[in-house]
């Protein structure tokens, strides 16, 4: 039995959704300033419209939804997914107004791809867009990586207990410090420190590679944002292929893998628990699956003789695989080269890496290392159970910050979410195939969208069927928020229509 939501429920949801959207509007001030700095006045106007629209929504809901009540769990989930929806519609204004998008749907695709740190895009003539719009593309992927709710939490919520519930709705359930605001601050500390160090490293490298200082700085910051948020946007249509440099590639690999780590892992390492890096279930899982998929792709490509020597083989394979596994989506090969050079085995290895994805409570997507780790442990526990005498109690545990006993509840949750991911991967692949794309390519692209990676083998394009664009948008959204909060939003809608009073 579902209860029909009452007026107070609508009010509290409206109020907090409004707050998050206000936060998105305020975020647009950064690209507005960049545009003004470079004298891109038409883009400045686009951002004024974008900011105003967000504020009209934000302040409007504050007026309409006046309540002092705090959020409960289902409110939190609905606010998280609902505000992502509204933020996508309104955040797409600058993209659309730039004239580089084929339709408003395309603009929304790009913005959802940004928030969810996917990195697929439909924007056309990227090489001629303004600095301001490029700033916005990368800022929204950086913000989306932190979680737009986390941002709103830090700046707009006044320490309510309900804030934590929205935060969980956004797919981040680690509490690093006693309260959620402190946790958000710790996440900011890690992200901003990496932002400064990473941007500096890429800036110096870019400058030495022949870029002008101002350009080198902005490119460094944007590539950092794309890498750290495991987003995969880059300022030029050539993506990170633009730089042609081993140093640049290595630095971006370090940033994107660091970005794919669980924030709880960062915090453990940053507070002196260094051993965690080799004990944590997710780092072990990541190291194993990354090495195995790299191994498969390396041998397949070596056998096909695509690359002339070990060094080129290493550079191309590891970069794409690390990018795929961390669900970043940076690429130093042409999208179509996955098909024309890498071939089926290369495609499959990359697809598996993307499907598994990054760590939980990180900026990344995919099934997540912790679930792979938990399910592997559960599998071996069952095997041991079969081999042991009937009376024996077979226990298993895994290490994530502390030792955790493996119980059926944990395994069950891991399994349901994994099955949800696999179903969605399958659905996007089948729909792609129905539209006439090669199945393997459709699977690659579908997994890339749902796991929030953003690598492309050429299926995604402004000319692809609108319904596939919609499916990818929904897939990115579901994948990033890990299903539950989106289902809560759907349930909320259903309850309004047919719930019991």
């Amino acid at each position, binding site marked *: 039995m579902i209860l029909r939501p009452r007026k*107070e429920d609508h*009010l509290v949801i409206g109020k907090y959704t409004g707050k998050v959207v206000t936060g998105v509007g305020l975020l647009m001030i950064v690209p507005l300033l960049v545009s003004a700095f470079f004298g891109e*006045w*038409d*883009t400045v*106007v*686009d951002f*004024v*419209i974008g*900011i*105003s*629209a967000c*504020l*009209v929504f934000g*302040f*409007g809901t*504050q*007026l309409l939804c*006046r*309540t*002092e009540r705090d959020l409960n769990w289902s409110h939190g989930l609905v606010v998280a997914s609902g505000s992502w929806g509204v933020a996508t519609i309104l955040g797409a204004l600058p993209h659309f*107004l730039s*004239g*580089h998008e*084929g*339709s408003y749907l395309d603009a929304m695709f790009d913005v959802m791809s940004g928030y969810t740190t996917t990195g697929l895009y439909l924007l*056309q*003539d990227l*090489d*001629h867009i*303004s*600095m301001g719009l490029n700033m916005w593309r990368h800022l929204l992927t950086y913000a989306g990586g932190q979680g737009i709710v986390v941002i709103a939490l830090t700046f707009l919520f006044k320490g309510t207990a309900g804030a934590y519930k929205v935060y969980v709705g956004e797919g981040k359930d680690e509490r690093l410090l006693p309260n959620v605001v402190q946790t958000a601050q710790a996440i900011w500390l890690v992200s901003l420190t990496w932002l400064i160090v990473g941007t500096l490293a890429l800036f110096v490298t870019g400058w030495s590679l*022949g*870029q*002008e200082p101002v350009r080198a700085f902005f490119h460094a910051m944007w590539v950092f944002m794309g890498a750290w948020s495991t987003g995969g946007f880059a300022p*030029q*249509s050539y993506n990170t292929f*633009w730089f*042609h440099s*081993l140093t640049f*590639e290595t630095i971006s690999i370090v940033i994107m893998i660091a970005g794919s780590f669980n924030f709880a892992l960062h915090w453990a390492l940053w507070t002196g628990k260094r051993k965690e890096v080799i004990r944590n279930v997710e780092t072990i899982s990541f190291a194993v699956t990354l090495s195995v998929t790299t191994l498969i792709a390396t041998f397949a490509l070596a056998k096909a003789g695509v*690359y*002339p020597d070990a*060094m*080129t083989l290493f*550079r*191309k394979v590891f970069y794409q695989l690390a990018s795929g596994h961390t669900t970043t989506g940076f690429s130093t*090969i*042409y999208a*179509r*080269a996955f098909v*024309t*050079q890498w071939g089926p085995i290369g495609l499959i290895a990359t697809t598996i890496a993307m499907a598994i994805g990054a760590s939980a409570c990180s900026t990344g997507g995919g099934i997540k290392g912790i679930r792979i780790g938990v399910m592997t442990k559960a599998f071996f526990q069952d095997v041991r159970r079969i081999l042991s005498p009937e009376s024996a109690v077979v226990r298993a545990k895994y290490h994530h910050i502390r030792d955790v006993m493996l119980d059926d509840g944990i395994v069950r949750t891991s399994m349901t979410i994994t099955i949800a991911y696999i179903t969605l991967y399958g659905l996007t692949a089948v729909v792609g195939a*129905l539209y006439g794309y090669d199945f393997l390519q459709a699977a690659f692209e579908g997994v890339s969208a749902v796991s929030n990676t953003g690598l492309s083998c050429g299926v995604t*394009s*402004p*000319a692809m*069927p*609108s*319904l596939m664009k919609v499916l990818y948008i929904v897939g990115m959204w579901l994948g990033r928020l890990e299903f539950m909060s989106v289902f809560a939003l759907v349930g909320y809608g259903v309850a309004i229509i047919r719930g019991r009073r």
Partner: protein
Amino acid sequence: MNRRTLALLGLVVALTAALLGGGCMPQAGNPQKSPNEASSGTLVESPKKYDGTSVTFEGEAIGEVMVRGDMAWIHVNDDAYYLENVEEGAALGGYNSGMAIWLPAEEAAKITLVGDYKHEGDVVKIEGVFNAACAEHGGDLDIHATSLSIVSEGRSAVDPVKVVKLLWAIGLAFLAWVLWFTNRKWDDWGIGSTTSR
């Protein structure tokens, strides 16, 4: 069959119809074709066929010239925008597409304008050898060029502020201010805060 099953069945049928019917592909209106016999698209589609062959490649110099010692990297786009870009009013015609080109720095120095938001870059023509996976450059798909000539010079491409957009901006900003102001007044008067507690 009960109502729920029927509804579910209806949904499935509707979704399938939508999927099959929604396959219309909105084609972009920009007909500009690549000037090259072997365009960047063709080179990427059949890298093996062209590997190690001499090619001439023409297009817009984009982004920047990255000088590295005696040599330099440039990127040349032969896409729908190589003669006119979107900011100047060209219709949309798909993604950018081009080639990375490694050439002597003195040849690259002939380029005076590169394409970006405010500029349509020089259209250049290069001659060189195509590599499907360059051993010298970490397996990059590139062209090692020996010569570069300017086909036509670039120009500045200013994107003017559109009046309609400006009016919208002013209107919306004003509305946002009004709402913010009302909000603050209501807070002062305590409207709404007690009734729905």
